[in-house]
């Protein structure tokens, strides 16, 4: 780990890694040992690494897997690995199938909409809605996701290049619940590099799905990650510096956003879930419009 000027053996790396994550959880007061946490798990390295770390540290972490119905065995294989992970550790996990719950898989929905929606953005909307609803209805103290520092730095770069004030205002390792139906969201791996997360999974023998989602090819996030990695090659620690300083500047008030960047939330007319504009939320609009097109 060039940014830490540290080289650890396979025995010492997992406890070091777990300690780094625990420090973030405690310093940012994400949750405590008495809290029930819902971990969003995809079967990929980051979410399974996060779940493994939380269980090893003694947190009450339950998994939520969303079956998106992505073909080429991607969803079936990721579901199998999540189930095997949970069984091996005696961990509680839940599965929500998008097709069973709403009638169509994500690729089927994207195809039917035919409105230029990219599958990734549509998939993100569906996952965020299901995760939030499940966490709220289940009474969990927080919804934890496996976003790592590379994810966060890539999003930050993208939003800063476009001066997306609303997104920049909301980007944070801890998103408090500001609505009765909005779950508190936390990102315990936000200061962990993606390669550190993958290394943890390999050293711990976490059987994650190596294959990338077939729809992620050419995704914008990958382009920004590549740019940041170029920077990191010549200046180790640059990615961490970029993200950490942004969070520090926000926390200290050096960067401030007006209230206009944080619009008040409304109740969706159809489902009661929070939405930034009056009327129906984006999720309900998506499915209702989808039904009209059938």
């Amino acid at each position, binding site marked *: 780990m060039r940014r830490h000027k540290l080289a650890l053996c396979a025995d010492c790396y997992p406890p070091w890694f777990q300690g780094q994550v625990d420090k973030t959880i405690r310093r940012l007061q994400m949750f405590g040992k008495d809290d029930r946490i819902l971990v969003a798990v995809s079967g990929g390295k980051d979410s399974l690494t996060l779940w493994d770390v939380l269980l090893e540290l003694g947190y009450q972490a339950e998994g939520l897997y969303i079956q998106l119905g992505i073909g080429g065995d991607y969803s079936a294989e990721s579901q199998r690995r999540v189930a095997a992970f949970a069984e091996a550790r005696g961990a509680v996990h839940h599965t929500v199938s998008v097709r069973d719950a709403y009638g169509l898989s994500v690729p089927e929905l994207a195809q039917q909409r035919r409105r230029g929606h990219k599958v990734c953005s549509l*998939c993100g909307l569906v996952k965020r809605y299901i995760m939030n609803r499940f966490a709220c209805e289940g009474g969990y103290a927080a919804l934890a996701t496996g976003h790592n520092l590379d994810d966060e730095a890539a999003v930050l770069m993208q939003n800063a290049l476009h001066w997306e004030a609303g997104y920049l205002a909301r980007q944070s390792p801890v998103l408090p619940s500001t609505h009765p139906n909005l779950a508190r969201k936390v990102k315990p791996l936000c200061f962990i590099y993606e390669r550190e997360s993958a290394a943890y999974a390999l050293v711990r023998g976490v059987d994650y799905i190596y294959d*990338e989602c077939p729809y992620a090819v050419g995704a914008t*996030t990958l382009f920004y990650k590549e740019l940041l*990695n170029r920077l990191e090659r010549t200046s180790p620690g640059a990615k961490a510096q970029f993200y950490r300083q942004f969070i520090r500047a926000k926390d200290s008030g050096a960067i401030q956003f007006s209230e206009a960047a944080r619009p008040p939330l409304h109740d969706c007319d159809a489902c009661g879930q929070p939405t930034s504009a009056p009327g129906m939320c984006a999720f309900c609009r998506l499915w209702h419009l989808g039904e009209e097109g059938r």
Partner: protein
Amino acid sequence: MLVEYRGEKQDMKGGMTARDLLLKLNLDPEAVLVVLNGKLVDDSVILQDQDAVKLVAVVSGGH
């Protein structure tokens, strides 16, 4: 040595560091981990002709 990356296998000559191998294959050392004979190694390790090398891409995206 046998080098595997994203399911594809190829024979290559040893005698170079893992980092040099990544650069030779046009891979970003920041975005790939090197597993040598089943064990995760630092990219300064020198690879030998009889080694089995698995290169693991770490970057995911699309969300």
